[in-house]
């Protein structure tokens, strides 16, 4: 998967890996969520640049359910949120990994998450999630999951 440096347009190949205890202990300040607590409830994965693996660009927490994978938390690193963020595509790359885990568990890519109200449209339009009724629950079904993978795992040949 690849993220893009906004200022330069440069693409960076990154990888998603399970966090180590040391990662969670040394996260630093500015993160919105309590990842130390979350890791007791769900598997946590980090987005890193293999060339500089100490820097964590984003985290995602995934819980295996009966027929889908649930995204319980997802957050870009503090320096990658807001108008001055350095990289884009971090959330999509993390969601792409969640789809892969879902596929490997024979869930056909199905994901679920609880969305903040003002992000529902974004999950639908950008990532292909469908809203469950009028709830805050968003589901990603197999066709949309494959398209999300295609978008975030395609190889960039220029830029």
């Amino acid at each position, binding site marked *: *998967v690849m993220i893009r440096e906004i200022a330069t347009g440069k693409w960076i*190949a*990154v*990888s*998603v*890996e*399970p966090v*180590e*205890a040391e990662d969670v202990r040394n996260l630093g300040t500015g993160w*919105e969520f309590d990842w130390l607590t979350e*890791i*007791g409830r769900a*598997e*946590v994965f980090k987005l890193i640049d*293999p060339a500089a693996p100490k820097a964590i660009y984003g985290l*995602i927490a995934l819980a295996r*359910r009966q*027929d*889908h994978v649930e995204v*319980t*938390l*997802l*957050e*870009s690193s503090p320096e990658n*949120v807001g*108008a001055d963020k350095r990289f*884009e*595509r*971090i*959330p*999509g790359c993390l969601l792409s990994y969640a789809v*892969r*885990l879902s*596929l*490997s*568990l024979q869930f*056909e*890519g199905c994901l*679920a*998450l*609880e969305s*903040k109200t*003002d*992000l529902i*449209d*974004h*999950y639908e339009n*950008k990532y292909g999630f469908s809203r*469950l009724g009028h*709830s805050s*629950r968003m589901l990603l079904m*197999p*066709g949309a*999951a*494959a398209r999300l*993978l*295609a978008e975030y*795992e*395609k*190889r960039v040949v220029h830029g």
Partner: protein
Amino acid sequence: MDKRTDSDEVDILVGGVEAEPDALSETSRFIAIYKQQPAYQAELEEAKKILADLGIDPHTYGMPNAKSLLDHWHRCIADLTGNGAQRPDAGHANEKARSSE
């Protein structure tokens, strides 16, 4: 917050939203009904074609054994809770899942 939907300028995050008590059962119900729809098989076929175009192995979908991820998670928790006896060993590093290009 910027709410443009055609770029990554929206700061996506997941968390802080309490699920309905029946969220899990409703999700399973939705998925079961969805899979019974006539168009579902065609959707699956389209998805498989997309995955094949990406070069993703249909058996593993590019992931190593998902079980090893669970084992890693349990060792990580043991480490964080002070049970050093269950720290991941160096050999385990080769088993870790990676999704990279």
